[in-house]
């Protein structure tokens, strides 16, 4: 399959500035949805697909919109992995890795440890009266949980965070910066060692973790496959729950009346989670490559065409979500696209839902009395606040400075 690196015949060409897109992609997406729902964007080197219905359509056709992408930065960073595979290989690996992330396992096997970690982190900051809830709480929490669920017994939360950051940087290394490649290589080698160790341990002593589950899968999964898939899970598994936590907490701190209602009715944390993931999707887009010629959004794409499914845009599609740009936990419920769809539906969805909406938010808001945004933290979703929200491939708050009445 040869990979066309220009616009498909008939596809509109739209110039988008990557810095602008990182700062705030939503105005550009709104314009694309209106005027060019499938557009070739030279700075991205892909066709952007931006309407909800078209994205859902593509997600449900994995045999046409393939996850195997030539020249993928992710492949270069971590090697062959299930995220860039189609079925049946994808399914084989996913089935081997998935059981520990299913919701009942999350509740019965992991929830107590998640909760203890959250309390430990809060114990550490509770007396201070101020913190950055991203760096001091959310990131170490989700990294520790991830190490646990994966079965990386010897890895600290800090290791997992560092590895994740190094790989994420490489995955977006369009500028081919050698320093970024080097850092990622160091991280992936460290992960390989840590996984090899965990595999040996899990062979003699199964522990219900993802690595253990892959070791004991039928048919068994090879060591190199376990290593690469653990890399991929670490690459994405930190920022997504961390970012939903941060954006949701920030949205509520900006809306005290909504926060009061949520606190009075704990069942609604679930709605807060889904609405946050819709409003600012932690993963903004993912790539697909066409296995054959296919017409979508009025354009016939040749085989080999690269497409980005822009789920952050689909989640703001006005034809599906009224006042889509508003954070509204009471909106009529329509399924969002933040977890992706089809066979690649986010494997961490149930872990993230539990650790963020059942544990992290309720604990933070109940233990840190009088929690509010720190002086100087913008108190609205617009304007300078956008300076703390960053990214378009991945998007989240870079920091969330808060204060409370220290006990």
């Amino acid at each position: 399959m040869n990979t066309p690196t220009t616009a498909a015949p008939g596809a509109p060409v739209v110039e988008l500035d990557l810095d602008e897109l990182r700062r705030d992609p939503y105005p550009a997406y709104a314009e694309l949805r209106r005027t060019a729902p499938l557009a070739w964007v030279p700075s991205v080197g892909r066709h952007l697909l931006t309407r909800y219905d078209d994205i859902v359509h593509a997600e449900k056709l994995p045999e046409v919109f393939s996850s195997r992408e030539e020249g993928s930065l992710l492949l270069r960073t971590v090697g062959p992995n299930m995220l860039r595979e189609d079925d049946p290989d994808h399914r084989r690996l996913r089935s081997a890795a998935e059981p520990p992330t299913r919701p009942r396992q999350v509740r019965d096997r992991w929830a107590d440890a998640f909760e203890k970690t959250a309390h430990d982190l809060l114990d550490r900051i509770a007396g201070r009266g101020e913190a950055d809830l991203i760096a001091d709480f959310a990131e170490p929490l989700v990294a520790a949980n991830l190490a646990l669920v994966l079965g990386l017994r010897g890895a600290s939360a800090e290791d997992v965070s560092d590895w994740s950051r190094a790989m994420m940087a490489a995955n977006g290394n369009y500028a081919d910066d050698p320093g970024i490649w080097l850092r990622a290589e160091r991280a992936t080698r460290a992960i390989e060692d840590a996984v090899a160790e965990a595999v040996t341990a899990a062979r003699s002593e199964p522990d219900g973790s993802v690595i253990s589950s892959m070791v004991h899968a039928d048919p068994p999964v090879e060591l190199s496959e376990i290593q690469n898939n653990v890399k991929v899970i670490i690459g994405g598994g930190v920022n997504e729950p961390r970012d939903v936590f941060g954006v949701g907490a920030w949205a509520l701190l900006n809306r005290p009346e909504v926060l009061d209602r949520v606190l009075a009715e704990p069942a609604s944390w679930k709605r807060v989670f889904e609405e946050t993931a819709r409003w600012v999707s932690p993963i903004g887009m993912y790539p697909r490559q066409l296995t054959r010629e296919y017409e979508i959004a009025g354009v016939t794409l040749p085989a080999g065409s690269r497409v980005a499914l822009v789920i952050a845009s689909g989640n703001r599609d006005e034809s599906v979500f009224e006042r889509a740009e508003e954070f509204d936990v009471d909106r009529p419920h329509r399924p969002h696209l933040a977890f992706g769809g089809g066979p690649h539906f986010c494997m961490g969805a149930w872990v993230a839902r539990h650790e963020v909406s059942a544990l992290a938010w309720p604990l933070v808001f109940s233990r840190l009395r009088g929690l509010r945004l720190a002086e100087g933290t913008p108190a609205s979703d617009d304007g300078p606040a956008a300076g703390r929200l960053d990214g378009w491939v991945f998007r989240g708050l870079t920091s969330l400075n808060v204060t409370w009445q220290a006990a």
Partner: protein
Amino acid sequence: MPTVIFRSPDGTAHQVTAASGTVLMQAALAHGVPGIVAECGGNASCATCHVYIDPAQTGPVGPPNDVEDEMLDFTAAERRPTSRLSCQIRLSDTLDGLVVHLPEEQV
């Protein structure tokens, strides 16, 4: 070719005829039955293809498999003894005339 009736919570009926061997969830999607979301495309990972089998017909449909049973604890609408994931049910001639009820919400 078995025929299935999907009943929405408001009572609307959607009649669907599909070839034997078709997965119930696929039959619903192919005919635009509202209320089946099926985010994960039929892999028993999302619990958004939840349906209630008509109580009179749970026998021929059979019980949920293990993975499905686990997912059914986490559906958006309450789990009932008749709950199933429609992606885990294959249609056959013995299921001709099946009636399934759609839950209030899937996500």
